[in-house]
């Protein structure tokens, strides 16, 4: 299961089993519900943006596959405390990586642990799973209530 180990690594399985930041966020300033009609994944992302434009806190709730849940868990962990501009840049890099347009081993990037998702590029049907939480976060920051991967 060599490819499987690439995508379904222990870290991703662990974040699926014990998702970080999986809670409501009553003091959220932004929220958006993301839906993937293809597989029925539903994830709501909450964000608290402080006065100077930093993501002070992030959380998520919902149901989905291991890839979408682990992606939400790692995204919320990695973005906490980051400025909004950096979050948008990271989304761009993440999106390019899962589409196969950015090789994180050869191109300089800020992905860090998010590199774990590079195996998704082999499965175009799963790109939407990996990016659902990101789309929801971007929707939240753009003041949408709902977003869809379709």
């Amino acid at each position, binding site marked *: *299961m*060599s*490819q*499987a180990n690439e*995508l*379904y690594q222990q870290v991703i*399985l662990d974040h*699926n*089993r014990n998702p970080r930041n999986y809670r409501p966020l009553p003091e959220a300033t932004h929220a958006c519900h993301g839906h993937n009609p*293809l*597989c*029925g*994944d539903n994830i709501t992302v909450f964000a608290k943006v402080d006065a100077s434009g930093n993501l002070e806190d992030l959380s998520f709730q919902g*149901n*989905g*596959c*291991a*890839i979408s849940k682990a992606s939400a868990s790692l995204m919320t962990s990695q973005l906490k405390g980051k400025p909004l501009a950096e979050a948008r840049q990271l989304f761009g890099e993440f999106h390019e990586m899962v589409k196969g347009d950015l090789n994180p081993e050869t191109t300089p990037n800020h992905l860090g642990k998010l590199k774990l998702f590079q195996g998704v590029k082999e*499965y175009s*049907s*799963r790109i939407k*799973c990996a990016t659902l939480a990101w789309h929801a976060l971007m929707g939240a920051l753009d003041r949408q209530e709902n977003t869809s991967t379709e």
Partner: protein
Amino acid sequence: MSGPYLDIKKDFPVLNREFDGKPLIYLDTAATSQKPAIVLDAMDRFYRESYGTVRRGVYRLSEKATQAYEGTRRKVARLLNANSVKEIIYTRGATESLNLVAYSYGHAFLKAGDEVILSQIEHHANIVPWQLIAEGVGARIKIIPCNDRGELMLEEYRKLLSPRTKVVAVNHVSNALGTINPIAEIAGLAHEVGAVVVVDGAQGISHMPVDVQALGADFYAFSSHKMFGPTGVGILYGRYELLEKMPPFMGGGDMIRQVTFEKTTFQDPPHRFEAGTPSIVEVLGLGSAIEYLESVGLNRIATHEHALLEYGTELLSGIPGLRLIGTAEKKAAVLGFTLDGIHPHDIGTLLDMEGIAIRAGHHCAQPTMERFGVPATARASLGPYNTEADLDALAKALLKIKGMFA
């Protein structure tokens, strides 16, 4: 192989390939079937030696192509036990066949207050066309519910029937659950109130003998690509008295008798419903697929698949946390399931890494998923080329996946 089983995997070139050194185990026949070499060769040979347009040319190449093209119509009529070749319409697939009936018959004969009865376990292709028509003419849609095993509740169906019922549209076999519906009984009751019966046969046709007259189907729709033929061609069987009354579905070449700017007259069925240059080589391929099916034998295929279904049901039922979705007493070889705590899409991707191809998702049957309270299922669907070893590999891989997620 002895006993109930066929041994025909060798006839299908793609089933002999590998992924990452693991042999391909194909368990997605309900989505589309693989093709035997005999069909591929027939199509290739036709392109190389005999290809020309049909029903238009006055040269020998076209005459030969037309003979082959119309020859498939005779094979389909025989396969279905239709009364006449005029009852066989070529379409692009089961979806187009169902749309043809809904638009042509629906627009001509449905009016405000009429009712169309569908079942709770239909594919979207046998729901959405009827919704579009019903909305346009002001007709209503009623639904036959199913029980927890996925069987239609006929006592509820009886209550829905009335003189307002104009169409009953149900599938022969549910693509998501495998339920084999009692079409003859459903049709008999529909005919008592004067309704016509439209059967989505996409999952029925290559898995068991189909006799449209014995079933009482007024229309029967299916695709070539699910019965070992190529994509791009489907069939609509329609009872001739009904087809004769129906207006064209699409306009264009070949479906007309005479065209002037003042008035156009149309061909008789089936050509009235076949506008434009058809999928000539695909139709020929379908003919070759039917010959293949008949040489293997539909009764033998049904026996093989039933034995595999029983074997697979027992095997999967033994996996802790696995829930089979669709447990009808009369069932085709479809194994829909969920695994506790593991999303069907993860199951699908992880099985692929073992060389096993299954479908994961809602199977274009969202109301069916809703009935069973799941957003999606994993589905292994079998064909006559599958073996017990394929199912052993599936069960082994599922146990491994469970271990990963534990």
